[in-house]
């Protein structure tokens, strides 16, 4: 099989000592960031991007580092959920439901061990899925013209709006705002300066890395500052993680089902890990019925969402790598990294730089094993990070963001821009306008406009080219279906919460 040969090649790339070391660093740092309450994969990866640039890493190395951070964060997110009942990030939310009750019963270590194994299985299944399905999608995507790509971008916004947020209006507002912000700067086709108002720093457009760090890291700090945090941290008694390994054997059905559900929701553009963990938990609860004791510390209630969210994280890489359409906030950031290194993901990437794509996939397999090995014996160490005082952690985040962003262009203007985006991100969060579509709009706007204009110049100004092919009509139909599905999902969610 062709894929296997490519994968073998990938392993040859990824097992170079330099890349192994980067993967290890990424996994460890990612787990730490993910474990901190409030800092999830989006912030973690956003914060690491300026650092990756400064390392002077080549694209493959930078991608391996950041994807390891991404996977690490997904692993780490469960630690504060289980130990403190505070999800490190949104997808880890479902893990609190049974993880914290387990910790209260003194089975915290077991829960952490079990969730490490569940995460490992979920992520590995997703990575296998990535290996199998990404090339298929690439074969399809090779037939895409500009009109189809335009439809695909609309699909991404439709799903991220429809699925991830409670309010349609607000997520589409966020997407439009991002797209509008994305037009700032010199128009690459006509060289006209748009919305720069004479500020020459804006001629290159809004640097999305600066915007990202502001929207996520800085706004997170502003949220933190709302309340005083001088209370003592609780002391955590964990116990060993090893019993969790045994418990995972008895949960193998749960883990398998959770992984599959998570993987599918991860592949849908825009749906991402939160949906993955939510669906796996809910469906497993339904599946087990009265045999389960969900909400009161059932180990399967930890295994299902952890398998689900890690599988979704892997699944989300498929549309990002093969189509250039990110499936979640974090993959949007990875896409931003690639674009700013002048690499455009999509079918051509697989054809032209297979060693990079498959090296990355191999690095994911290796990273997973590293994470499992790191997480079972060292989980006590990671949990201890939660004891570090927040007056040390938060300034550290802010300062790393500052120095990282400054060193991108050595420009104080970028720092002011980052602060402005921090305030914007904060206000949007308070308004319950999701920030991920803003980032996606800012990031994809240029490509979307470019494809639109190319389609139009092919057709000579005839707008009907946008709906002229079976593929694009199919994509629009799929987008419509997903919006409806999103509405149903939102309704179910509302009923669940009511």
């Amino acid at each position: 099989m062709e894929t296997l040969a490519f994968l073998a090649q990938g392993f040859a790339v990824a097992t170079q000592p330099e890349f192994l070391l980067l993967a290890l660093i990424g996994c460890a740092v990612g787990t730490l960031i993910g474990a901190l309450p409030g800092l999830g994969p989006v912030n973690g990866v956003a914060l690491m991007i300026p650092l990756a640039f400064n390392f002077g890493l080549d694209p493959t190395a930078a991608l391996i580092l950041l994807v390891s951070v991404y996977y690490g964060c997904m692993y780490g997110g469960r630690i504060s959920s289980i130990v403190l009942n505070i999800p490190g990030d949104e997808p880890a939310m479902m893990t609190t439901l049974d993880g914290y009750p387990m910790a209260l019963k003194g089975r915290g270590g077991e829960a952490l061990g079990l969730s490490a194994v569940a995460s490992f299985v979920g992520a590995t299944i997703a990575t296998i899925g990535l290996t199998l399905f990404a090339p298929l999608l690439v074969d399809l995507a090779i037939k895409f013209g500009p009109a189809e790509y335009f439809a695909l971008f609309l699909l991404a916004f439709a799903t991220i709006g429809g699925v991830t947020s409670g309010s349609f209006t607000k997520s589409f507002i966020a997407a439009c705002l991002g797209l509008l912000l994305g037009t700032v700067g010199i128009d690459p086709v006509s060289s006209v300066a748009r919305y720069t108002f004479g500020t020459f720093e804006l001629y290159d457009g809004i640097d999305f890395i600066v915007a990202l760090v502001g929207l996520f890291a800085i706004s997170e700090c502003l949220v933190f500052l709302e309340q005083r945090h001088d209370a003592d941290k609780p002391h955590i008694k964990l116990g060993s993680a090893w019993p969790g390994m045994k418990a995972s054997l008895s949960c193998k059905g749960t883990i398998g089902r959770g992984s599959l559900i998570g993987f599918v929701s991860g592949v849908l553009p825009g749906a991402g890990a939160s949906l993955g963990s939510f669906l796996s938990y809910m469906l497993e609860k339904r599946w087990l019925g009265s045999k389960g004791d969900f909400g009161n510390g059932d180990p399967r209630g930890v295994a299902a969402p952890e398998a689900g969210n890690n599988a979704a994280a892997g699944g989300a890489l498929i549309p990002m790598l093969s189509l250039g359409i990110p499936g979640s906030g974090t993959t949007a950031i990875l896409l931003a990294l690639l674009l700013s290194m002048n690499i455009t993901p999509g079918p051509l990437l697989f054809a032209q730089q297979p060693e990079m794509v498959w090296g990355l996939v191999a690095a994911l397999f290796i990273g997973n094993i590293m994470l499992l090995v790191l997480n079972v014996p060292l989980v006590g160490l990671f949990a201890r990070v939660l004891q570090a005082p927040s007056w040390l952690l938060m300034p550290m985040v802010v300062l790393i963001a500052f120095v990282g962003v400054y060193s991108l262009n050595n420009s104080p203007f970028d720092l002011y821009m980052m602060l402005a985006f921090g305030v914007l991100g904060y206000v949007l969060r308070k308004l319950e306008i999701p920030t991920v579509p803003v980032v996606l709009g800012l990031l994809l706007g240029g490509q979307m406009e470019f494809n639109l204009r190319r389609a139009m110049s092919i057709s000579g100004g005839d707008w009907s080219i946008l709906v002229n092919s079976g593929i694009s009509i199919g994509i629009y139909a799929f987008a419509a279906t997903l919006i409806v599905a999103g509405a149903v999902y939102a309704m179910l969610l509302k009923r669940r919460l009511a």
Partner: protein
Amino acid sequence: MSQMSDLDAHQDRRPAQVGDRLAGAVLLVLALGAWWHSHSFVTGFMQPVGPGAFPRLVSLPLAALAAYLILRPGFNERWPDRAGLARQLAVLLLLAAYAGLLEPLGFLPATLAGAIVLTRLFGAAWGQALIAGTGLALGLYALFEFALGMPLPDVPWWGGGN
């Protein structure tokens, strides 16, 4: 990460007539302004779609959605109280000052001062802030200057330069 959280937000959210309507109004003005301004972009020769078309294409739904938000406001998370607002403002001012002083003062002095005050603003006692801030500044300097090989702005009056 809680900005999209349907699941935990319900504890802390309120109906938001004022917040959402204000946001809707601001966004509406922004959309209309973007629409109006986009007509000043000159369409070049032989371009079926000029530089103004895409911004107009985006500002149209933005205006419509913003108007809808004014008519049907939704929910907001709880806005910060006065003390919280003061803390946020203090940190933002400090960071703006730090950004402005980074180049005139040089990296080390600016970061040293910035880190100490920042740690203090995040709730450390003065003694803790002094130690943690100094450690952070030196650690960052070592990380960027030596480990990453990034030249950071030197202290101007030390001469040399980079």
